């Protein structure tokens, strides 16, 4: 058997629907059609009452989820693309994320954001929005990078009593395969040391983890052992695991696919600098996309986002400092 990242997301939803009658899925075209990416394929057949097509109304979709959460349910909202969640932004950050704090009533909703770039998708079907949502108090923001994590973290997201922004990466949907789904899993809020090393640490998440791994493989040919930390969850950040790694390597590069200003890499480098200053043997480095909208043309797109090559280059510099 072999299962893709996309199938893992579907399986997690199937299990969540099975485990609890409080779970339902709401989104555009997610019913009989199975979703724009087919991540709810077949679920409508098994749970016609709980896999429901919505109008094109992201604001109301999120509001509806909040109301259902008040009523004790655990809705999953699928945005057709992460980019369109901008229309539901107000309900996410002001309604859902503040609910528990204002009223002491939890708001267990999961918002699935098909995120990130793929060639030819352009500025409005490629965005990574973890930074926007993580900035606001009250949200938990997950960014799984593996098939196993996509599965176990989505299940955990649905079980958490707070709003979870689940950033699933579209580039990984079909590219990534695993042999089987996990039975046990690291808690979602723990970072994972994906690859041990000693010359430098790369902190990455989501699709960038794989670029980092490729870079590390290239660098290993020159004898560099690069440790890779997969953040998994970007809010909260498991800073202890991060600092533990830097304690071993003394050098760090944070890599993120999203825009450069104030994103995950800024938060992580800033936390490292404040809390792990004395662990650092060289200036901490960052790598993000270029500060423009995400280009449509694959030639431009490949250059716009960090890749194994640009990571490799950055690490070579970092190691020399």
């Amino acid at each position: 058997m072999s299962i893709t990242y996309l199938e893992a997301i579907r399986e997690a939803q199937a299990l969540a629907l099975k485990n609890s009658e409080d779970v339902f899925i709401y989104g555009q075209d997610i019913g009989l059609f199975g979703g724009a990416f087919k991540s709810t394929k077949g679920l409508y057949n098994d749970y016609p009452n709980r896999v429901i097509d919505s109008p094109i109304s992201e604001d109301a979709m999120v509001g509806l989820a909040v109301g259902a959460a008040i009523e004790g349910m655990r809705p999953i909202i699928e945005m057709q693309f992460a980019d369109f969640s901008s229309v539901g932004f107000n309900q996410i950050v002001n309604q859902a994320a503040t609910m528990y704090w204002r009223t002491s009533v939890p708001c267990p909703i999961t918002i699935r954001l098909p995120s990130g770039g793929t060639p030819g998708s352009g500025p409005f079907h490629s965005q990574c929005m973890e930074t926007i949502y993580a900035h606001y108090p009250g949200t938990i923001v997950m960014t799984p990078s593996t098939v196993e994590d996509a599965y176990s973290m989505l299940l955990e997201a649905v079980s958490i009593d707070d709003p979870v922004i689940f950033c699933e990466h579209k580039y990984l949907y079909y590219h990534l395969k695993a042999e089987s789904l996990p039975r046990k899993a690291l808690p979602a809020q723990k970072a994972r040391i994906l690859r041990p090393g000693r010359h430098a640490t790369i902190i990455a998440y989501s699709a960038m983890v794989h670029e980092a791994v490729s870079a590390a493989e290239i660098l290993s040919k020159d004898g560099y052992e690069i440790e890779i930390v997969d953040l998994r969850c970007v809010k909260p950040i498991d800073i202890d695991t991060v600092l533990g790694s830097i304690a071993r390597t003394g050098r760090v590069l944070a890599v993120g696919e999203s825009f450069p200003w104030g994103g995950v890499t800024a938060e992580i480098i800033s936390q490292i600098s404040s809390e792990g200053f004395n662990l650092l043997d060289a200036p901490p480095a960052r790598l993000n996309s270029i500060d423009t909208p995400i280009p449509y043309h694959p030639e431009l797109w490949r250059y716009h986002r960090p890749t194994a090559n640009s990571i490799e280059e950055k690490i070579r510099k970092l190691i020399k400092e």
Partner: protein
Amino acid sequence: MANIANHEEGSESDLSKVVLDTFRWMILARTFEDRISNIYRSGKIFGGVYVGKGQEAFSASMAINLVKGQDVYSPLIRDMAGRSAFGEPLVDAARTYMGSSNGPTKGRDGNVHRGNPREGMPTMISHLGAMISVVSGVLFARRIKGTLNNSVGATTIGDGGTSTGAFHEALNLAAVEKLPLIVSIANNQFAYSTPTSKQFACHDLVDKAVGYGVNGINVDGTDLIDCIQGFQSCIQKARAGEGPQIVVGNLLRLSGHGEHDDAPYISEEIKKSKLGIDCLKKSEKRILDEGWCNQNDIDDMFKNAVNEVNSAIETAESESAPDPYSHDWNAYSSVKFDQ
């Protein structure tokens, strides 16, 4: 004072009973808000004060037709009367204004931003239009769970709030799902200083109903009996499975947008028009004319209201402010983490 909602239709004594009940809540709301305005003017309220003066009949008439423990009610800024009629403890209101740490939000949010989502009162955020989909979500969940039964969800908005995308998306969604949702639109002719002519171009707000495929009616917002009967019929339709209902109330707010605002933009002409009639006075006159009670009874109602208000405010004032050092600074229910 019990919350009378399930009286039978048509009977004269039933009508008089619900009118008197509603009237009492109107008096309580007016008395409370007048008092809060005074305290505001003395500088003892943190933040703004927004009152429902002139809108009490419309506001309370919706809520009086709801059943606490069964229905959902998400009020907005001018719904003191509706809140009371729905069953919000007066002391909750007082605590929120006075910043008591015992209030429903523990001092975290203020004035009109109180509620109890688990007791059928989802708590408003300021962004206009945002509560309609939340109420719809409660109903949607109940339908999935099979617990909808006879319940309805009700929420309110102003003439200005109808211009928001949130209003549109939520009402359309509720219509598609045929949810038992009642949206009252208090058309008080202004959104802050903005007259309806700069807010919408339809002839009548109720004209929007057909575009959503829902039922809509107009009521005279200054007339308590018209309000009660209008909501009664629409809420019954919603309970009967006829889908969302819009009730437009035509009236005027008899105050500034907030108590900081002396509303120079409201012309004398409109104040003197039918819209500017004070629903409280009009109700009183009608009640007396109909002989549903006498002047003594009404005086007692006002006295009782003053007593209730005094005691609620005293309680709130006697309570401590939230203490930042012992406050639970955690926006998360599931986890405790430092950032």
